[in-house]
């Protein structure tokens, strides 16, 4: 069976004896179901490795902050971007009138892991930043401010 395969990385061999459109439809449904399952699994895994503060921030504001191996502050966003702002480096620049920290954007990093759920990507970046920041910096494409 040649041509377009909507789920190249998924095992759909069980449906390979079906024909034409029917096969594609089932492949698509299979792929969607598999993707939803993968998303849930990745989110559970991410939640296991977030601190309570990071989890709260991720739930409420769709991002969490990570202090890296070398003590830098990074912000990781839930949304998946095709451009920049995938990961942002911040620095504390004084305090706001309400006493909270005033954060300034230092640099945006564009880095991706293809074909994995967003939560898996976020956990991967968190691990890289905390345990091998040099590799993260060597891989990511920076935009400085």
């Amino acid at each position, binding site marked *: 069976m040649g041509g377009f395969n909507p789920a190249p990385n*998924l095992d759909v061999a069980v449906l390979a004896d079906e024909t034409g459109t029917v096969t594609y439809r089932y492949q698509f449904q299979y792929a969607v179901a598999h993707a939803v399952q993968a998303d849930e699994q990745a989110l*559970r895994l991410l939640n296991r490795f977030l601190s309570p503060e990071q989890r709260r921030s991720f739930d409420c504001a769709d991002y969490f902050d990570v202090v890296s191996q070398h003590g830098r502050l990074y912000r990781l966003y839930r949304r998946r971007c095709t451009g920049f702002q995938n990961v942002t480096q911040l620095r504390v620049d004084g305090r706001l009138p309400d006493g909270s920290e005033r954060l300034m954007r230092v640099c945006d990093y564009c880095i991706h892991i293809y074909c994995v*759920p967003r939560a898996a990507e976020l*956990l991967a970046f968190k691990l890289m930043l905390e345990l*091998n920041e040099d590799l993260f910096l060597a891989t990511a494409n920076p935009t400085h401010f």
Partner: protein
Amino acid sequence: METEVCDPQPLVSEETEGRLTVVSGYKENVKWDRRNLTEVEAAREYFERLRSEHFLGFRMNRDGSQGTQLHSFDASAEEILMVPPSVGG
């Protein structure tokens, strides 16, 4: 009365158990018993296979302390997370 503790994914369920988790929804995860050489070897082989596909291995600690990057399989690890290769955009 018996109380059941529901934790869907405890970090480590036994002292002798290790776990290799792939940070991706699409790959198989494996567990091994440190006393069982066959399971250890199977896990080592899986680790090496993922490493050859440029996955990064990180050893995580049960107590929540900072993990470390692994360059070779460590059967004494409580949990190993395998991270798929990333690319700059």
